[in-house]
């Protein structure tokens, strides 16, 4: 069946033929309106976001746990909990995930956290060095199911690389859109995979608007936009961060998580993943707190949180943390709900604090984070100082990307000294 990017949400022809495992329908998060599985993303009744509804009723908890533990060392170990066919691991994909959960005792000491209580989930270890591989891997399976042959997206950089790589591996054409002034490292890392990469004269929100209009135009027909018409499927990939963290902690929930906020999708799906593990009996049902982290120069959710608002007023971004520079975050209202429901908070740090935090994580744990990781580590420090984050409880801080992508942010870092190749010169420089 030919892909229909402009399919009506009432078109039932896209649902019955697709095999997306336990996924049964799309359900509006706002009003509960349900539609069949298809390449649609917004509710026809209220414009609310559509998300995947599942049938997990046939699962036995201990059988499911064994099945997961016997699965591959990537996100497909959680295939029974994702909108993917059961044989997903046999299909060409980039197979991300199962990244390291680093017990960060050195960082804990610096931040005043109890030994053994602080962990960094280091998603720079994914195939294109950011968490975006998780969500794109999901979108690839949805694109296959709906018959798309071209993959596209609006991107702040990391997603562009992930889409390019996944498209190359899976045999799709890719054409992705980025703000024209992205970090050069991210441009190269997106372009190298051979797909089309288009710079848009504007910021990310302008790019996003363009893609949303392209999707309704004949020029975009037959295209799978991973974070637009495939967004319900794509977003589920972030649940695997929650699954991995809990499994790596020995099937335990962390007490506190610090998660970066761009659109807010990742944070909302981590919460969804944790709730699913509780409902399935895979972890003990106990409270957890989710904290959101933003850069001050793009902090619409943090501002709304502190003002007590339940809606987010868009901002014009101005921060070095470009991967988080979404001024009009689609899932912002849900992040506010989750932070408040779980007893967490949303906080922001300025660019200088971001750079300091990147250096802190690097010198204490040997992890070179991109700016988004600097934001989460910086916010963690601030939350501890403000008494909002309990340093005696198990805390997981996310690093969602590799520092090699944002070298400009730490450009002042360099040589300790330049010396002649002699022992005398070495001693004279105070190094001996």
């Amino acid at each position, binding site marked *: 069946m030919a892909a229909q990017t*402009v399919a*009506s*949400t009432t078109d039932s022809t896209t649902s019955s033929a697709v095999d997306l495992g336990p996924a049964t329908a799309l359900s509006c998060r*706002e009003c509960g309106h349900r539609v069949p599985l298809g390449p*649609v*993303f*917004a*509710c*026809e*009744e*209220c*414009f*609310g*976001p*559509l998300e995947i509804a599942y049938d997990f009723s046939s699962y036995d908890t201990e059988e499911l746990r064994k099945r997961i533990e016997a699965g591959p060392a990537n996100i497909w170990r959680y295939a029974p909990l994702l909108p993917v066919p059961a044989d997903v691991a046999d299909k060409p994909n980039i197979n991300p995930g199962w990244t390291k959960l680093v017990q960060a005792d050195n960082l804990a000491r610096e931040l005043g956290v109890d030994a053994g209580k602080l962990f960094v989930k280091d998603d720079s270890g994914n195939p294109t060095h950011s968490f975006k591989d998780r969500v794109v891997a999901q979108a690839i399976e949805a694109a296959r199911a709906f018959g798309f042959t071209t993959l596209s997206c*609006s991107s702040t950089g990391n997603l562009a690389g992930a889409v390019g790589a996944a498209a190359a591996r899976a045999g799709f054409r890719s054409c992705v859109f980025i703000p024209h002034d992205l970090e050069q490292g991210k441009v190269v890392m997106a372009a190298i995979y051979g797909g089309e990469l288009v710079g848009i004269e504007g910021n*990310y*929100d302008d790019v*996003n*608007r363009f*893609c*949303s*209009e392209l*999707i*309704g*135009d004949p020029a975009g027909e037959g295209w799978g*936009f991973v*974070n*637009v018409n495939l*967004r319900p499927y794509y*977003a589920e990939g972030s649940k695997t961060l929650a699954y991995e963290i809990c499994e790596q902690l020995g099937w335990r929930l962390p007490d506190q998580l610090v998660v970066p906020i*761009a*659109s*807010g*999708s*990742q944070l909302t799906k981590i919460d969804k993943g944790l709730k699913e593990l509780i409902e399935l009996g895979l972890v003990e049902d106990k409270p957890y707190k989710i904290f959101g982290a933003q850069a001050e120069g793009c902090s619409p959710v943090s501002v709304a949180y502190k003002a007590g608002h339940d*809606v987010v*007023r*868009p901002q014009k971004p101005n921060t070095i943390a470009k991967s988080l520079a*979404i001024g*009009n*975050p*689609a*899932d912002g*209202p849900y992040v506010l709900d989750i932070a408040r429901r779980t007893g967490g908070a949303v906080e922001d740090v300025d660019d200088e604090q971001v750079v300091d935090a990147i250096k802190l994580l690097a010198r204490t744990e040997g992890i070179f984070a991109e700016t988004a990781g600097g934001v989460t580590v910086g916010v963690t420090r601030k939350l501890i100082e403000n008494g909002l984050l309990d340093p005696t409880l198990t805390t997981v801080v996310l690093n969602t990307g590799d520092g090699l992508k944002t070298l400009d942010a730490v450009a002042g870092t360099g040589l300790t000294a330049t010396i002649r190749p002699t022992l005398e010169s070495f001693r004279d420089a105070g190094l001996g």
Partner: protein
Amino acid sequence: MSVTVRIPTILRTYTGGAAEVKAEGGTLGEVVSDLEKNHTGIAARILDDQGKLRRFVNVYVNDDDVRFEQGLETATPDGAGVSIIPAVAGG
């Protein structure tokens, strides 16, 4: 004032499948009212029960997000382009 309104896919059932329609009005609110006259039911999809823009709808007048402007009071000059776009995209 005559403006051109870009209609998102999920609202095209109200416009007979048309991706663009003409509408009249000096403000966005007046444009929405005029859309409703010719495409009955469309306003209730764009506005909530209090008559405000739904929180998951983005509306642009030319290049400007009306949330940065005056919302439904935003002026719609003659010949302007109005785009109605689902907000749940990106990230």
